[in-house]
């Protein structure tokens, strides 16, 4: 059963010129997401997850060079031109960023910002836009929505601001919502509420969603599929339950192990990953994770493993010595 992809990222690479030389932020990534599905992209800072989302949204820095194709709803976004892209971003492709204080305009009221979007893109008149704005704010769980229309972003808490940003993102019924670390700036109880809200609206609207985060805990119960990124590449990709139960890439396992667990006794040493990610301006010949990997062999340091489906069609990983599999073959 092949569901046609709503978004298909094909062989996308992003290069950024820096004083220290070329920085390959995204290194030949392939991803697909079907309508109504959720994809989690997980990785640490500098792994390229935000640059990848910007490549999808065509919001890359001016100096960045993009190669590959970004097919959304049958159109190749890097090649459709500014006008078509603008219409598409307005109606079908929405984004929620990490910090709602920087994505909202501080000198305009919440009402102005919401109604501007609705009037511009949906051609609603003032009264209809106002009514729709109030309904949207209520849907995202903002109490007293009518009064909020008159308020400025600084008068709201971080959680409320993020709800407003979500309301604006959802206002034109997008087909795909990209949520880039939407809860990183928020407290844990507010984080849970915002993630619940995103999940509810995603299901209700049958919208596709890409949830970008550094926290494996966030994607575990809330996505259909997960892609783990390291040093600009997707190193493992699988349906979420499979990824957690049969992770093959040592980096994925190390990342999960490094999270302190609530059921672990106090003062238990954490299995830390030694070292740090490689300098993205100095690409390695071998696997980017090999200098930190406890499973790495000679081949891992010399040759770059390709992301492929070894055992099952829906489980991809880029590793010469995958977990368990290697043990099984060795015996």
């Amino acid at each position, binding site marked *: 059963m092949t569901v046609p992809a709503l978004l298909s990222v094909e062989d996308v690479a992003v290069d950024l010129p820096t004083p220290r030389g070329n920085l390959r932020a995204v290194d030949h990534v392939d991803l697909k997401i079907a309508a109504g599905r959720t994809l989690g992209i997980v990785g640490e800072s500098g792994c390229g997850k935000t640059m990848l989302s910007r490549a999808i949204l065509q919001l890359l820095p001016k100096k960045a060079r993009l190669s590959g194709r970004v097919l959304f709803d049958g159109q190749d976004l890097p090649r459709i031109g500014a006008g078509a892209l603008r219409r598409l971003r307005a109606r079908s492709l929405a984004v929620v960023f990490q910090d709602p204080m920087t994505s909202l305009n501080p000198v305009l009221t919440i009402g102005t910002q919401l109604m501007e979007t609705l009037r511009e893109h949906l051609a609603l008149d003032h009264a209809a836009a106002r009514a729709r704005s109030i309904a949207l704010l209520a849907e995202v769980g903002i109490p007293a929505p009518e009064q909020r229309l008159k308020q400025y972003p600084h008068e709201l808490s971080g959680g409320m601001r993020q709800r407003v940003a979500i309301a604006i993102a959802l206002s034109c019924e997008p087909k795909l919502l990209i949520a880039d670390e939407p809860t990183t700036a928020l407290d844990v109880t507010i*984080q849970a509420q915002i*993630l619940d809200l995103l999940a*509810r609206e995603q299901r209700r609207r049958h919208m596709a969603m890409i949830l970008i985060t550094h926290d494996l805990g966030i994607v575990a119960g809330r996505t259909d599929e997960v892609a783990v990124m390291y040093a600009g590449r997707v190193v493992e990709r699988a349906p979420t*339950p499979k990824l957690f139960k049969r992770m093959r890439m040592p980096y994925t396992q*190390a990342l999960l192990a490094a999270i302190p667990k*609530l059921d*672990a006794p106090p*003062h*238990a040493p954490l299995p830390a990953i030694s070292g740090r990610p490689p300098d993205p301006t100095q690409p390695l010949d071998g696997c980017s994770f090999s200098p930190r990997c406890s499973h790495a062999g000679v081949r891992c340091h010399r040759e770059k493993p390709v992301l492929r489906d070894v055992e099952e069609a829906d489980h991809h990983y880029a590793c010469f010595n995958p977990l368990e599999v290697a043990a099984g073959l060795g015996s």
Partner: protein
Amino acid sequence: MMQDVAPVRSSDPLLRVENLVVEYAVGAKTIHAVSDVSLEIARGETLGLVGESGCGKSTLGRAILQLRAPVSGRVVFDGLELTAMRGEALRQMRRRIQLIFQDPIASLNPRRRIGDIVAEPLVIAGHKDETSRQALVSDMLSAVGLDPAIVSGRLPHEFSGGQCQRISIARALVQSPEFIVCDEPVSALDVSIRAQILNLLEEMKARFGLTLLFIAHDLAVVKAVSDRVAVMYLGRLCEVGPSEKLFENPAHPYTALLIEAIPVPDPDVRPAERVTVGEPPSPTAPPSGCRFRTRCVRADRRCSEEIPELREIAPNRHVACHYPLV
């Protein structure tokens, strides 16, 4: 047998905070950052202090260090009342009490070399001998896992966040303090680096016999390093108890809410669709009675009328709730 001054015994707590109140004036309003907080930390113990942003946990940490003057209350360190000290006496005490900040890069002077940054506390304390100062700095940099020969001459921007936090730890340790307030020391770090720094703090604590106050918003991080945990909400302590007991059987509804909100990295644990529990009210106008009552499903009239005292419900377990869960 009777003495004028009670001798300090090793069983006495190293730090005692008594009825501490800290307030800030913001325009015409007053922020009730810390309201009547009392706690003790034993020698060699790590007390975790958790709560959401704005709950007053960092202010409490700073008030303990006398970086923020309290409105009332006492801070007693090793039998000496810090809140009554001024000038040189307080400066001498600061050698024994150090602080590690959240943002490792911003807390290092970008124009100074690493060797000088770590040596600075010694210079300020009047450590004149250059050679022995250098030796102490080198020892401390090695202890935190950095090569002094390589890092001493460099500037902070040449280091990653994790390495800068190692440098901050070296700077905090160079005067052989007894007590360190760690204020969100790993919040700005990536998961893989966070584990390295938590392990390093544990190692340093064992090696130098430190007592720690570990402030963080992440419960799992706090549990990983703490013997006891104190939960704070809107300036007041909700619950204090041994880490394992507190996490297994939270007594305060707020502790339970915090635990439930932690994302679990297991796809079989579907996040429960919560009843919306709202957001913390403003610390300029905290609710009457129990400050958590506006978000608490168990709250009734008594909770709005009567402030729940922090009381012992089991040995070593304290909770400030009229209707505790255990």
